[in-house]
Each structure stands twice: as C-alpha cells, then as structure tokens.
C-alpha cells in the first residue's frame, strides 16, 4: 500500500533516474499497443469534445444545437443576448434559490460529516481499543447499502417528526449516509500516521484529547480536506434523496430543480435553456475539479485502494 498523500511535510529526496533505454530490437510496434494508443487518444478527444459541446450548446438556439453541433454559437451573439439561455434557466427553473440552498446544505453537510467522522476514525484506529477493527468493518459495510433500501422507513419516520420536506431533515440524512465512506477513508489516513509524535506528546504530558486536537488533526489535514472535497462533490450531485425529501420549489437543490425543469423544458423544446441548466450544475464542479484534480483523484484512489 502506498503512503497516503499528505501535506508536503518532507519532499521526496530525489526523483529516480529516467528509465534506461530498452535493448535494441525489443521496441517492436505491437498491434495491441497501436490499438490501445488509438483508443486512449480517441477516448480523451471524445471527453474534451463532450465538454466543448456542452459549453458551446449552452449558448446556442435549439436549431443550432441540432443542425450545427460542431460550430461555435452564433445566433444569440448576433442578437446581442449571448446569455439568454442561462438567464432563462436561472429564472424558469428557480436555479437562483436552488444554488443558495445547495451551497448551504452541501457545505454544511460535508463539514459536519468530516467533523463527526474524524474523531470516530481516530478512535477506531489509534486508541488501542479491542474490537475497534470489527467496528470499522461494521461501518464500512454501510458503503454497500444502496440508498433505495432505506428510503421508505426513513421517509415515513421523518414525516412523523416533521422532518420530511425539510432541508434540515435532508441535511441529517446526508451526514449520516456520508459517514461510512468518510470514516473508512479517514481510518486509512490515521492508520498511516507515525506513532512517534503521539508518544512524544504523551511524554510531554499532553492529554489524549489535546494530542488529538493539536497533533493528530493537523497531521491528518490532507486527509480531512480530501474527505471534505469528495463529500462536496458527492452531495452536490445527489438527486434521489432530494427528489424524495424535498417537495417545495423554494427548498430545491440544484440537481432537484434541474430534474423538475427537465420535464417542462423538453416539453417546450427549450433545449438551449436545458443545456444551460446542466452547465450551471456541472461548471462549479468542473472548476473545483480543475483546481483540485490531483487531490480528488488521489483521495478516491486511497479510499478504493485499501
């Protein structure tokens, strides 16, 4: 297992030397390799094209979208109203309030998830309590439970206490359902931290709580940030629970609002507005991804590779 990526405590000493040239004659062009290279590049080009198509179409009229899929947008720019689709989607689908709801709900849920998971993951890995690994496994099983299977009892009981159709109710569910993955990811991080600093803190007379707060948490900062980002992305994209637990337009999250908008807008052939709506949901995540791609990828890899 690789050591998990941490904040740059110490840089790797030196890059390994470039790999030596292969023996002459061994670098034959094999058909498999040619095929593979072609597939890889075609795939990559396709993904980039999809992104271009999404962005350019969000500025197009429906006719342009379907008859000129490769060209740059023209008509709305000629008409002097290039952001027409975005304005339409923002107003018609109520994406303004949905945006605020999503940012607040998803932000709060992701932060609280990490705040609740970090002590639990620490306790499960580093306090030397018997049975902790069994308990870790018990929580990890939760990752395999499809949300659909808990939706009915949750909905019925949340309705009884007035938390169905309610953003706070959804917040609780988001936190609880994000816990298994987050605890699992963070146990991996805490397990990999060195013992020495913890022991040194104990010898210096720091209480276990203080050791956790001022030694272990800062050491695990990379893991905590990764967990936070992964939860932000996952919850930002979550739709099923939002469909079940949010009924009022004013409470809608972005993906929930987009889901409702889809039926109405495709009925009216408002394709430009729809694609703009999709872009409004996707672009913030794309920006986050471009800025933090390395951390997101290593984080997910770490979660899966253990």
């Amino acid at each position, binding site marked *: 297992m690789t050591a998990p990526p941490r904040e740059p405590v110490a840089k790797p000493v030196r890059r390994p030397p470039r790999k*030596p040239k*292969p*023996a002459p004659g*061994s670098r034959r062009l094999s058909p*498999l*390799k040619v*095929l593979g*290279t072609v597939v*890889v590049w075609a*795939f*990559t080009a396709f*993904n980039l094209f*999809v992104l271009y198509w999404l962005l350019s*179409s969000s500025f197009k009229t429906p006719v342009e979208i*379907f008859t000129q*899929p490769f060209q740059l947008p023209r008509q709305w720019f000629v008409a002097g109203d290039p952001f027409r689709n975005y304005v339409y989607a923002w107003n018609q689908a109520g994406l303004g309030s949905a945006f605020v709801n999503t940012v607040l709900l998803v932000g709060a849920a992701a932060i609280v998830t990490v705040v609740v998971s970090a002590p*639990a993951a*620490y*306790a499960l890995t580093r*306090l030397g*309590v018997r049975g*902790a690994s069994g*308990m870790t496994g018990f*929580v990890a099983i939760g990752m*395999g*439970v*499809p949300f*659909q*299977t*808990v939706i*009915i*009892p949750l*909905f019925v009981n949340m*309705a009884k206490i007035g938390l169905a159709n309610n953003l706070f109710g959804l917040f609780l569910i988001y*936190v*609880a*359902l994000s816990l*298994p993955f987050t605890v699992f990811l963070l146990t991996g991080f805490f397990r990999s931290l060195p013992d020495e600093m913890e022991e040194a803190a104990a010898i210096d007379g720091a209480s276990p*709580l203080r050791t*956790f707060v001022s030694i272990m948490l800062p050491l695990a900062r990379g893991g905590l940030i990764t967990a936070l980002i992964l939860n932000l992305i996952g919850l930002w*994209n*979550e*739709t*099923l629970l939002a469909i*079940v637990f949010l009924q009022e337009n004013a409470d809608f999250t972005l*993906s929930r609002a*987009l*889901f409702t908008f*889809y*039926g109405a807008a495709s009925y009216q052939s408002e*394709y430009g507005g729809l694609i703009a709506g999709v872009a409004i*949901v*996707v672009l913030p*995540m794309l920006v986050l*991804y471009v800025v933090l791609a390395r951390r997101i*990828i*290593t984080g*997910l*890899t770490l979660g899966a*590779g253990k």
Partner: protein
Amino acid sequence: MTTTAEAVVPRPRRGTHGQHEVRKRRLFWPFVAPAFALYLIFLVLPTIATVVLSFTSWAGAGDSPEFSGFTQYARMWASDSFQYSFRNTLIYVFVGGIGTFVLAFLFTMVLREMRGGKLVRAILFFPNIVAPVALGMFLGFVFKYQPGKQGLANFLLESVGLTAAKFLDPANVTWAVTAAIMWASSGFYITILMAAVDRIPPYLYEDAELAGASPWQKFRNVTLPLTWDVVGVAGVLWTINALKIFELVFVLAGPGTYSPPNNAWTLGIYVFDRSFGSNGTPDFGAACACAVAMIALVTVLVLLLRRLMRRDAIQF
C-alpha cells in the same frame, strides 16, 4: 490487557504510560458515539425496518402495514416490472462491468508508457464528477431521435450515410445506458488501477522489456498479478455502484418526471416507483421487498466476487 500487571509491578515510566493508555481508552466512546448514533439511526435501523416491512402489505401513508408473509416476494417475483428491473440491473452489473474493466485494462497497458499520461487520466476521470441527472440529460441530447433534429449520435450516423437509430426506445435504452456507463465510469477504474500500477517497481517492467515481452505478456505476467488485490476492490466498488443505478436511466428512458416504461427499469427505479412514483397507488410492501432483493443481490455478488478473486497476496 496489561494494565493490572503494571499496577502490581510499578515501574516509573511504564506506570505513567499505562495510566495514559487508560485515559486514551476513556476517549473512545465520546469520539465514536456521534458517528455511530447517526449510522445506526439513519442506516442500520432503517435497513432492518425495510426487511420487516417487506413481509407486510402496506399502501403507504393513511394505511397501516399488515403482516402478509412472503406474498410480496411472490407477487414481486411474478411481476413483469420486477423481472425487467432484475434483468436490466444484471446487464448493468455484468455487461457494463466486463466492458469497463476490459477498457480499463487496455488503458493500463498503454498509459504507463505514454507521454501526458497524467493529463489523460485527469481528462478521462472528468465524467465521474458530473451529477448523474445532468449526465442523463446530456446523453438525452446525444441519443435524441427526431428526424430533422437529430441528436449528436444520429447526426454523426446520418452524416456518414447510415440510418438514424432509436437509441432511447425502451427496448434499446438499456444498451445505450450500458455504453454510456462504460464511457463515464471507466475513467474512475482506470485511475484506481493506474495508481496500483504506479506502485509496481519499474525494474520488473524493464526486465520484461529486455526479455522482449509484448504488452500483453507484460500485462499478463507483471501488471495483473501485482494489482490483483486492487482489481478485486475495484470489482466490489463496481458491483455496488452498478446496482444502484437510478437517475441516469430515469432521465434517459422516460420523460423525466415520472417513471419510464417498465422494460427499461432497474431495481432502483422499481423501489422508487412503488413508493413515490406517480403511477397508481404506492405499494410500500412491494418496494421494501425489492429493496431487500437489492441487498441480497449485492451481498451475493460481493461475496462471490471476493471468493473468485481470492489469491495469495504477492509481496513486493
């Protein structure tokens, strides 16, 4: 536990150490309790409740659950909609899974030696951060069939002189979604497998290269054995994720706001339609029975996969 022994034989340093251990353990429950409480209340207990409710007939709000034994399961098993859901879910898990992993393996053979490999990986990973609802809508435009206003896929088909295809017809949509899922999720599995490949000491590949091994031989004899454990984990992840597929199909196969025709259903759609769908009265009992079938299926598949993948770990 050694604390008592240490109390009997006090040693200056070890004594305080033992005391520290006790104080550490006292921290355990306060630290674990909040997470465990939420986990139990929102995930474990509801799962148990679902199992119990699956033995009742219950039309949802206003009605009360009545014990009915295995009737829900028998009725569910006999219904067309469940059989379609079950079949489609298995198609996503197996056909989609095999396709995705073949793609991912092909990529691991090439990406290791390729320039710009990291950038390619980041680009391929991108669809994984897009909301499935947004992905479904986007693919709706790609696969759209409407003479004169063809979606991208049919636009391309027609521009090379082929006839347009009805990708999103209920009979075809499962295959269109399978292809879409393979495209969208392969980036994730490529990333995981490549991270494992990166850990393999390069001299093994250099050795193989000096011996004149082909890419396939290198894959078969170096990459696969040394990443086997990660492949197993990736397989489990795939199974769990493929079984949950809901939004993508819901949006692609249907008009979007109510359930699609039932030959395009997945188990997730079955549960949703029977509990919150707008067609007919809710049937919480049947929905719970299907939910239990989902849990059973994921358990069986994961255990089976782990058994199949069991090998001695290779240390390197």
